[in-house]
């Protein structure tokens, strides 16, 4: 059963050039899917179309049997509570504590008033601590986020996504700003999300090697088109070249 | 519709005072009047001092105050804008009646240059052309309305000035080389005495606390007044200086006016009754004996008291317009 189905999706920001052209694929529940492609290929845009952070131009996105594109305000908020998102630059509120940032993941479940009053239940707080412990940063719970290292901040970002209780987690280049060590920790955590919690992961990546190492499936994007869709065994060098364009490939392996 | 919402009678009586009466030296007079009002109505009294005639007038007009002590001209403007503004009482003259309830608007010049303002030994308005002139404020009765009406009627008869308007007088314009505003009668007088202006308009009662007759009779053209040596501020810096009157015009006394909508018929009656009573007339805090040291709003020379006045009593001033 497909958790996410994308059919003939097109997207244009300026009504002229199409950033995404006629994209179709579907993702099964529990899959770990990487999206790779050169800069500007439309990877970020694709992720943002899934949870409607940007409106799509044409085509369809069906998440959990609901047609995402037709959702109005309220329903859209509810959809988003089911989809966690992790960002390259973590996008935490720097002046707030780790635990506060994690709890932001619960805002989607609150009425406006509850949210404004910061009414989080004890249960939610406990769960936040549980997640922080699982991610190995419980000790920093009361630190301000801007006092953490990049890898630690990204783990806060993951905790924020997980506390939503999502069915799908979208990760937009989660390790592009991290050193190799932290990158490994983050990728391991993301992997364990699918394997242990059964949550589907859709991850934008720049590094082909990392994608190959972690993914069940890889989607290659070039200039807004899907040029590859398969397992990492199927991703031959020739295919990689097709995704990145030949020269690109050289630059990246340097 | 907003009018109606606001025109309720509340239990604070707001009294507005002109800048002339806003000085610290008149505080005791103001408070005394306030006490009478409070006693008569049983309500709290709040005094509002102003720096500006227009604000005082508009405050009463727009139902934001109950009572104002305002010049005749101010009263007329207020009444024009809001029918509910009506006179309560007017201080009488020495006779104790409204017949001599007048004070005087002066045009004064410094004694030293009095000869410059005479033609054939008589004072003549012709001489004030191209001089520096000081008014009080353009909402002042005796400090602007009355003198400017006189000046206009004099000059518009001449070919050169036949288009002269009141506004020209405010702005300098063709007649005067410069026009100053003292913003109070005291200020206008000081403008004259310290040399900023050649000719100044102001009224007798407003400066009587500070000056005394040095030569001639009170309120007569040609009389010379001298600033008392111990005059209060602002006259202390021109103490001993003398000026002479080149023109004296009687002006109707200033009324206490009420906004009937905010004061209410009932309190109006009570107030008029209280203020016109003999008790108030003999209250030395309000009608201060003439020989007293202190400054005051009203002085007792003979039978001065408050008398009720009707709107049409002010018609002579209206006709000046």
């Amino acid at each position: 059963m497909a958790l996410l189905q994308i059919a003939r999706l097109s997207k244009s920001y300026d009504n002229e050039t199409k950033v995404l052209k006629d994209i179709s694929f579907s993702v099964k529940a529990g899959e770990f899917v990487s999206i790779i492609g050169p800069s500007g290929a439309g990877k970020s845009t694709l992720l943002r179309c899934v949870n409607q952070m940007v409106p799509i131009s044409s085509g369809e996105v069906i998440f959990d049997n609901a047609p995402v594109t037709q959702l109005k305000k309220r329903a859209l908020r509810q959809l988003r509570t089911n989809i966690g998102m992790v960002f390259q630059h973590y996008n935490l509120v720097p002046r707030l504590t780790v635990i506060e940032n994690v709890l932001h993941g619960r805002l989607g479940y609150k009425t406006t008033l509850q949210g404004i009053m910061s009414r989080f239940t004890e249960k939610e707080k406990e769960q936040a601590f549980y997640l922080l412990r699982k991610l190995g940063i419980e000790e920093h719970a009361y630190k301000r986020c801007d006092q953490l290292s990049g890898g630690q901040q990204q783990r806060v970002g993951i905790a924020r996504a997980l506390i939503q209780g999502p069915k799908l987690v979208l990760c937009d280049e989660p390790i592009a700003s991290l050193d190799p060590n932290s990158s490994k920790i983050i990728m391991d955590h993301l992997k364990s999300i699918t394997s242990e919690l059964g949550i589907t992961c859709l991850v934008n990546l720049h590094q082909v090697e990392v994608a190959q190492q972690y993914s069940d499936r890889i989607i290659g994007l070039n200039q807004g088109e899907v040029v590859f869709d398969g397992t990492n065994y199927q991703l031959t060098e020739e295919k990689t070249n097709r995704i990145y364009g030949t020269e690109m490939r050289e630059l990246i392996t340097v | 519709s907003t009018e109606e919402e606001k025109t309720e009678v509340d239990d604070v009586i707001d009294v507005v005072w002109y800048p002339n009466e806003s000085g610290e030296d008149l505080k005791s007079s103001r408070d005394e009047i306030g006490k009478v009002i409070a006693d008569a109505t049983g309500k709290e009294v709040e005094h509002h001092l102003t720096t500006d005639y227009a604000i005082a007038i508009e405050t009463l007009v727009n139902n934001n105050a109950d009572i104002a002590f305002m010049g005749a001209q101010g009263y007329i403007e207020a009444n024009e804008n809001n029918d509910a503004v009506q006179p309560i009482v007017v201080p009488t003259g020495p006779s104790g009646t409204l017949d001599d309830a007048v004070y005087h608007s002066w045009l004064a010049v410094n004694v030293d240059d009095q000869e410059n303002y005479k033609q054939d030994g008589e004072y003549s308005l012709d001489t004030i052309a191209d001089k520096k002139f000081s008014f009080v404020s353009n909402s002042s009765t005796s400090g602007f309305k009355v003198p400017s009406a006189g000046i206009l009627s004099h000059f518009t008869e001449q070919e050169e000035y036949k288009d002269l308007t009141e506004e020209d007088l405010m702005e300098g314009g063709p007649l005067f080389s410069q026009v100053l505003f003292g913003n109070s009668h005291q200020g206008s007088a000081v403008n004259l005495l310290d040399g900023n202006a050649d000719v100044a308009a102001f009224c007798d009662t407003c400066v009587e606390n500070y000056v005394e007759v040095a030569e001639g009779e009170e309120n007569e053209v040609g009389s010379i007044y001298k600033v008392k040596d111990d005059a209060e501020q602002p006259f202390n810096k021109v103490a001993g200086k003398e000026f002479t009157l080149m023109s004296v015009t009687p002006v109707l006394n200033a009324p206490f006016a009420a906004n009937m909508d905010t004061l209410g018929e009932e309190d109006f009656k009570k107030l008029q009754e209280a203020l016109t009573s003999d008790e108030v007339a003999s209250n030395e805090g309000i009608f201060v004996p003439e020989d007293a040291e202190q400054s005051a709003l009203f002085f007792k020379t003979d039978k001065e008291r408050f008398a009720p006045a009707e709107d049409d009593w002010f018609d002579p001033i209206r006709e000046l317009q």
Partner: protein
Amino acid sequence: MSEKVMQKRKWQMTIALIIIIAITYLSAAITKFNFIDGLVAFPEAIGWMFSNLLITQESLEKLPTILDKLVETIFMSIAATTTAAVVSIFLGIMGSKTTSINGFLSTFARFIASVSRNIPVVAWALILLLSFGQNSLTGYLALFVGTVGFLTRAFIESIDEASHSAVEALTATGATYFHIVNKAVIPQSLPQMISWILFMIETNIRSATLVGILTGTGIGYTFDMYYKSMNYNVVALVTFSIVIAVIIIELMSNYIRKVIM
């Protein structure tokens, strides 16, 4: 750390909020400000404005005189600002750390700036009115004094910001103090300074209205005159002219700023 820290922060926030509310309440008490009255007064006042502040045909006849006074006011503001700027450049150079000659002069410049800025412009206007009388020069001087204070502070900041490194380089070439100021400091901070001058011209036109009311000069006097004679149609016209003038000058200076920065 732990939960306590967060609790403490919450407390601090609550206390801060309480203090702010208390101060507001106190202020309302001391000024006899009534929130309800204020709330009621607002729509009423707006209503009053819309029904009284109307520009009529009749008032338009006054336009030439008004424009005349407006021009006088604009000139007054510009003259006050530019002459003040000249003085302020010297004070600024004396006061800035980068270019200061000695500690005494530096302190002196800052002191002058602080005093002339913090004595309100109304005080200057009133004092000057006493001896200079009711003419443009009074308004000019009142604006001038305040502007010197403000611009000196702004210039000191601009010069401080201009990097010290060019000054060092020019010292090393054997340039004199005046060379350095002229070649390294002024070119670097000039756009900033011009931007401040333009800003000050705008501000001064607004202040000139205030000063004009007090000293009987310029557009402020015109406003005051019609205001006092309760000719609100002309008052509206005067206000409108000021608004247009300020907005035009603001647009112009925004343009200049954009080009030179």
